[in-house]
């Protein structure tokens, strides 16, 4: 990072928000977030200008602005609380934007899938915040690497899961295929400068934490490299242009994640920025073709530049930035995977380029859409300057590697364009059936558990309560029928016995004196007998 550029953000004071007493939190613009903020702002302007010509309403703009604001909070947050706030609001806004045409149940379903998948991964960040309190006694991002031993690993695990989910890396990639259900301007923003890159950003930001654990850096590197390779194959297999672009986003972000794992933070950042320009450009061009059912020369040229840049053809931007990333990779196995992924990216970009050879009707495209396309095309072509030493290029790519990668890219694109077809691996067409696996492995069992518990709740838990109530009534009935009868019978028996005794007692009462006298004589005799015997 050059000293001259440092001055630019040195004047931006950290903003103190302090959401929770005792746990300071704030926003800060530093040498990483400044690049992301500028990228976000530029892409947002381009996308909104484009969308203006398509006549979207208030709801669209409100959601898009909230979406962008959430991303801005995410990249400037200096602690886990604010980060998570931006992070989650961004997810919710992506839900609302993907399901923008809400009357279509399939699009709503896509929105559900996208939100739930990313939120499942976000649980890692919630847990990581707790582990951070336990291990580092702080929520500040800068303090996480200093946490005590078991907690540091737990924090890293939570962060890595959340980041891989947000960035649609394996095994979470499938949600990005679903995200295509949104309008093209949404895809253009979501795939470039917001949402999906947030995960890569977080890993780049938390590089010291990944380093401190050791294993996390390796895991992240491999996750990124494998996603770049395998999702590259998925992109190659797609017949639908937007699906191809979606898979290519996963693959390209794989390079950024690889950069974070390998420690090539500057290269990863440069790749993120250049990719944002290229990918938003490609999605907006695809949007023109989809909505206007025709094409325009500016659109064709812009798309061509974008696709060639995506292929990594020198001297365009992604060639430079990808090499910066690969130059930072130490392990040769990772490097080999990264190199293969790089060749694949040239192949799928070539396949996208073939689209230009299809006959299409010429249609007018408004100036408000042509200008952003032209601007993004210029940026997508020229952002390789980011890789120059002094801006984001400190590592400096190895010359022969760059030359080799460039040559391979040119060769691959040339062959694809010449042959006009590419191998389409059928096993990759459905994104490795990841969504089906998630449905079968998580969603259906989850619903089965829910239904089973609901039945358990009705029959056993509530049944026990009802049983107690019934038991009470039954006891009452029993008491009335049996115990009451017995008690009552006993009372009756006592009464009868008393009556019998009374009748007995009445019989001597005859009123005849001689009988009384005889009774008295008998009693006296008995008394005398008792006295004699006792005496």
């Amino acid at each position, binding site marked *: 990072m050059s000293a001259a550029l440092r001055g630019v953000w040195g004047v931006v004071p950290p903003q103190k928000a302090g*959401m929770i007493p005792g*746990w300071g939190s704030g926003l800060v613009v530093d040498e990483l977030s400044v690049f992301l903020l500028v990228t976000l702002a530029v892409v947002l302007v381009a996308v909104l200008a484009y969308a203006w010509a398509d006549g979207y309403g208030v709801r669209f703009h409100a959601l898009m602005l909230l979406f962008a604001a959430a991303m801005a909070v995410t990249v400037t947050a200096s602690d886990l609380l604010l980060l998570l706030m931006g992070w*989650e609001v961004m997810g919710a806004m992506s*839900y609302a934007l993907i399901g923008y045409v809400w009357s279509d149940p399939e699009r*709503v379903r896509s929105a559900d899938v996208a939100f739930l998948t990313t939120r499942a991964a976000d*649980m890692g960040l919630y*847990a990581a915040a*707790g582990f*951070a309190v336990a291990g580092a006694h702080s929520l500040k991002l800068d303090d996480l690497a200093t946490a005590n031993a078991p907690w540091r690993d737990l924090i890293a695990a939570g962060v890595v899961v959340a980041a891989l989910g947000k960035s649609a890396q394996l095994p979470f990639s499938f949600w990005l295929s679903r995200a295509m259900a949104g309008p093209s301007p949404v895809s253009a923003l979501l795939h470039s400068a917001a949402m999906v890159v947030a995960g890569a950003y977080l890993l780049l930001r938390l590089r010291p934490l990944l380093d401190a654990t050791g294993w996390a850096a390796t895991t992240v590197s491999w996750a990124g490299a494998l996603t770049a390779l395998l999702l590259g194959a998925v992109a190659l297999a797609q017949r639908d242009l937007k699906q191809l672009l979606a898979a290519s986003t996963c693959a390209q972000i794989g390079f950024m994640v690889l950069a974070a794992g390998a420690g090539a933070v500057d290269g990863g950042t440069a790749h993120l920025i250049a990719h944002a320009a290229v990918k938003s450009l490609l999605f907006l061009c695809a949007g023109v073709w989809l909505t206007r059912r025709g094409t325009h020369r500016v659109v064709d040229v812009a798309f061509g530049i974008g696709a060639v840049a995506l292929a990594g053809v020198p001297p365009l931007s992604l060639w430079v930035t990808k090499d910066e990333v690969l130059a930072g990779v130490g392990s040769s196995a990772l490097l080999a995977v990264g190199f293969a992924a790089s060749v694949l990216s040239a192949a799928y970009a070539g396949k996208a380029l073939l689209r230009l050879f299809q006959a299409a009707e010429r249609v007018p495209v408004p100036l408000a859409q042509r200008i952003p396309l032209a601007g993004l095309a210029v940026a997508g072509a020229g952002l390789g300057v980011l890789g120059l030493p002094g801006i984001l290029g400190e590592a400096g790519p190895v010359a022969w590697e760059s030359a080799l990668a460039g040559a391979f890219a040119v060769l691959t694109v040339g062959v694809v364009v010449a042959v006009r077809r590419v191998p389409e691996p059928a096993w990759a067409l459905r994104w490795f059936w990841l969504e089906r696996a998630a449905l079968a492995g998580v969603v259906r069992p989850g619903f089965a558990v829910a239904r089973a518990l*609901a039945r358990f709740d009705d029959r056993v838990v509530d049944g026990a309560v009802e049983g107690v109530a019934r038991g009470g009534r039954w006891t009452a009935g029993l008491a009335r029928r049996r115990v009451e009868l017995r008690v009552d019978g006993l009372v009756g028996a006592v009464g009868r016995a008393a009556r019998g005794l009374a009748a007995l007692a009445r019989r001597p009462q005859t009123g005849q004196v001689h009988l009384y006298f005889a009774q008295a004589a008998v009693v006296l005799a008995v008394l005398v007998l008792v006295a004699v015997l006792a005496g």
Partner: protein
Amino acid sequence: MLTLVIFLPLAVALALPGVPRRAVPWTWLGVSVVELALVAAMWAAHGTGGGTSFETDARWIPSVRAGYHVGVDGLSLPLLALTAVLFATCAVYSLRNTHRVRAFAMLFLFLETVCLGLFAALDLLLFFVFFDLSIVGMYFVILLWGHEDRARSALKFFLYTFLGSLVLLLGFIGLYLGADPHTFDMVELTRTPPFAGSPGLAGLTLLAVGAGLAIKTPVVPFHTWLPPAHTDAPAAGSAVLAGVMLKMGTYGLVRIAMPLLPDAWRRYALVMLVVGLVSVLYGAFVALAQDNVKRLVAYTSVNHMGYIVLALGAAGYAAGDTDARRLAVTGAVTQMVSHGLVTGALFLLCGVLHDRAGSYDIGRFGGVARRAPVFAGLVAVAAFASLGLPGLSGFIAEFQIFAGTIGTGTAATAVTGALAVAGILVTAALFLRVLHLVVLGQPGELTPRVTDVRRPELAALVPLLALSLLIGVAPRVLLDTIEPLSAAVVALVGR
């Protein structure tokens, strides 16, 4: 002043028979707004300091040393404010009611006095009286203004929670007998906790107090009175029942169980953690399987109240980090307020749906957003607030609960806290399911009947969600008041 705040609604209720019928709803609304203003004034006067304000201690039943002892602090003020807000909301929402308006208003004013009194009580016997009266009041609300199987639900509610209150009374008597000298005064009991030398008796007393409050909260497995009571209660009744009356259980845990039985609380903290965790997950999963939207919201209450119990359990781990435990207690109190606002709003929205279509069955709606866009927007905001979206109150509460519980740093708290995080995913899934089936997609069988919210309904719902937004964006307003109280509770439990 506090006594005035507590008994003003009751006084107006007694005067209500003399008010002309057409003025009844407006009188009710007027006194509710005055109450709100008075509580706000008390909050402003109390500020963010510690200690108790507006204390009154009068002789009541001197033979058992029970007094009319009331006061407010950082725990009672947010709940008093919540009570005032929700009752005012119900008054607005019911402006168009026509069924036995006078009796309805009287009953709600009576309930308002009862709820305010409970959250201000500093005497166990006084607390118990209000606790019991709340059950009686709500019984009549469900019985007289409910729908469908209301008599059965009301009876079940009454018997179950009344049983709970009897167990609670046993616990209170235990506390009375365990104290030296015998007293029901909470402040004195807090100063010298009863059963200093007999952990067995303290444990039994905690069992009684805890079980009594657990039924009210409710936690699994004592929750089955809640779904039928909510389903058959009128919308305003559900809002008060879930929004205010469920808090009596968790409020009692913080106010009575933790400071009065600190040793026992620490010893059985693991029980609280596990009960909280089970409530969180069980409530969320059972809610996911519901097709009746009001039952669904009722089960999410079990889930949300479970977070509170979990956090309070974590606060009992004296070996853990003190700051983290404070965070957990603050989160728990925030969750009480947040759940009151959001679930109150959700139940009122259920009421709108039932008012229009006469059904709670989510399978029979769909695409409601077309004909009722404002209603759809409110449902979406309330649903996202309930599933813990940042920027709304639920997130602030749940974040603090998770961070505090896990951050306490013992193995038990870290594991249970991390497992409880899964609750937010299930809650998200179930609310997206509701949005998908009711609000979005293609119109269903009953959709044509659903018209948009009317003005009183809107006026009731917007403040609730706006307050949730305020707490979500600027939580310091609330947290600074709670914080001294959390510090005090954590210190009391830790001694």
